[in-house]
């Protein structure tokens, strides 16, 4: 059987060499084709699988009709699977021409590995003027722009006015009022707030918001940029405030096993008076029977702290980028300018997002009412914003942050330990 073993080992060696050499990105895809008359097909991967209003699909069809020589071939993958898929494809050097991505920490590793095209030289044709101020902040790395955002997030406290009226509670504007409201609701057998902490990020939104009110935008940003320590009183105080809510019974007792879908359903069923979350829940709330009975207000301020009520949690989130390996860079950039601008308005109209591009030309009366309220009361006239931290921090740090916030919900650590560990595990490990 020796001959057989020999064949086997030869085969193994050959395939190993072939496989390992494949780790470097394919070199064939690097030559840019610039002939404008040539018909090209751009591949575009995104996560718009559940797109009931066909916003993504219609926009692509529109582009394809207008540009017979530059056709977009889109492929949508379910959100979680999309993250695996795009990371794998980019790592293997096989990214599509146009990439849907999240601004901030998600895109940063791709940028650092030179997988994403810098767009600066393409944007001086007036594109920047069409966008809102600060729209590109979260997608700028080392002073260069690597994508076009088209949708921003903003945190809002959704309040069910029916429940507030019925229980004689006033919508809180300070944290003390919030705690008092929680206790009043509690005494009437109503759980005041809901959060899908099994999925981890929803609880983080609560913490990050409270932290913003404690520290003010600048200190939060400094800590996120590793210029300031998390191990300071305001961060520990914020953790303490979150635990105060937990201890006051603001959330249901099985908060750690509730999913985010579950928590939204509880709110839209009219069982829960308050829900702090992003604007992305607005369309779901407006689609439920609660429509018209929910108001989206600023998160309460904390008396005696630096945060002011004109600062909000959020910023540019969804973005389109172009692969550095794309054969048709010019065409791809041209396409994302159209796509990003169009989505920005259409998603705002539908309640799916808040705009990043100027939206003077859209019919105000058609905008989803809750989104409009969030845009006018929280985003417009704001003096500062901090992205949800998982947007800002890269993978490992974001996960650590999630875990620590979950420990707060589970009463596993003290506020002081939280602040210390945020500093040592997130800022200390660079």
């Amino acid at each position, binding site marked *: *059987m020796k001959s*057989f*073993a020999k064949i086997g080992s030869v085969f193994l060696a050959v395939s190993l060499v*072939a*496989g390992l050499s*494949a*780790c470097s990105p394919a070199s064939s895809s690097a030559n840019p084709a610039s002939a404008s008359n040539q018909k090209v097909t751009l*591949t575009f*991967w995104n*996560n*718009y*699988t*559940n*797109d009931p209003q066909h916003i993504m699909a219609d926009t692509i069809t529109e582009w394809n009709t207008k540009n017979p020589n530059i056709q977009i071939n889109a*492929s*949508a*993958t*379910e*959100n979680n*699977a*999309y993250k*695996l*898929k795009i990371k*794998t*494809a980019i*790592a*293997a050097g*096989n990214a*599509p021409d146009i990439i849907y991505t999240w601004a901030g920490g998600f895109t940063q590793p791709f940028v650092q590995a030179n997988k994403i095209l810098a767009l600066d030289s393409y944007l001086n044709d007036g594109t920047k003027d069409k966008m809102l101020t600060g729209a590109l902040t979260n997608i700028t790395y080392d002073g260069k722009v690597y994508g076009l955002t088209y949708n921003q997030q903003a945190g809002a406290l959704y309040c069910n006015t029916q429940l507030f009226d019925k229980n004689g509670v006033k919508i809180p504007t300070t944290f003390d009022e919030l705690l008092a409201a929680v206790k009043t609701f509690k005494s009437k057998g109503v759980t005041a707030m809901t959060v899908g902490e099994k999925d981890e990020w929803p609880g983080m939104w609560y913490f990050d918001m409270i932290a913003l009110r404690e520290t003010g935008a600048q200190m939060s940003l400094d800590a996120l940029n590793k210029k300031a320590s998390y191990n300071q009183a305001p961060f520990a105080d914020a953790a303490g405030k979150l635990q105060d809510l937990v201890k006051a019974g603001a959330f249901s007792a099985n908060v750690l096993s509730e999913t985010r*879908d*579950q928590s939204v*359903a*509880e709110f*839209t*069923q009219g*069982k829960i008076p308050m829900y702090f979350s992003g604007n*992305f*829940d607005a*369309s*779901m709330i407006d689609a*439920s029977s609660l429509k018209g009975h929910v108001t989206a207000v600023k998160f309460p301020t904390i008396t005696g702290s630096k945060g002011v009520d004109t600062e909000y949690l959020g910023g540019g989130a969804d973005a389109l980028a172009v692969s550095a390996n794309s054969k048709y860079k010019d065409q791809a950039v041209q396409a994302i300018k159209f796509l990003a601008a169009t989505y920005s308005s259409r998603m705002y109209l539908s309640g*799916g997002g808040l705009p990043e591009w100027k939206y003077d030309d859209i019919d105000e009366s058609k905008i989803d009412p809750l989104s409009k309220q969030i845009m006018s009361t929280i985003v417009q006239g704001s003096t500062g914003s901090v992205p949800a931290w998982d947007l800002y921090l890269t993978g490992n740090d974001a996960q650590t942050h999630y875990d620590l916030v979950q420990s707060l919900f589970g009463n596993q650590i003290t506020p002081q330990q939280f602040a210390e560990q945020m500093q040592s595990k997130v800022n200390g490990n660079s």
Partner: protein
Amino acid sequence: MKSGCIIVKENANVNLEVRSSKSPFNIKKILGVILLAFFGIYAVIQLYPLFWLLLFSFKDNQEIFGGNVLGLPGVWRVSNYVTVFTSGNVGIYFMNSVIVTAVTIAVSSVLLSTCAYAIVRMHWKLNNVFLTYILLGMMVPLHATLLPMFIILRNMNLLDSYWSLIIPYIAFALPIGIFIMTGFVKGIPKEIEEAACIDGCSIYKIFYHIVLPLLRPALSTVAIFTFLSSWNELMFANTFISSDRLKTLTVGIMSLAGQHATDWGAIGAGLMISTVPTLIIYILLSDQVQKSLIVGAVKG
């Protein structure tokens, strides 16, 4: 449930009830009743998920999350099924799943039965080493292989084709299948093959005419497992396929989930649609296992 009628048709070879009824009032009979009661209760428990899925597929998120979790849907939302059939190309997805799964089962059955036979019966030095080598395949955590496999499939130019699913599915069906098969091949009395050998059969004929028929229950069992794993596989199918015309059914169903909003009722309807063929395949194949009793009786 509709399976109830099956009991009536049932024609068991060795029937506990019949045998114990020879002598009434004995302990055996009481035990038989207890046993049957136990089996009945256990059947209800096992049947419940299917029933629950059926109800689930007619509900909306409000009911699924807290409004009405376990009861009958307030309104039977047939619209969930309409959603599934109108979003994307469910017909094409279904056919893709059928093609991928069928090829996977056909090819892997041939490979794993020959290979298991060679490992157990044929004389070569490395058979145990080879079996262990193959078993490594059972031990690989799937998620760690995603990137390497992507690179390998890309270099073979197979990404975004049926083969990018079929080949990995076959590869992962092999270790489990070969391992189960070796267990069964060992159970076949050698005398049968030896008798055939005296008659002057070639090794291929022995395998095809003597061994393979005896392995039918095992092959059916393995085919069930292979079917389940490739029919339900999600990660590879999501990652290696980008063209809509090549997507499989599970990917199509999970596409009903969104980043911020997921219509769980429609997903339930989709899962119901994909479960029915699975159930049919299982019933057909496991009947093969039962029928094998007759084959097994033809003993040398």
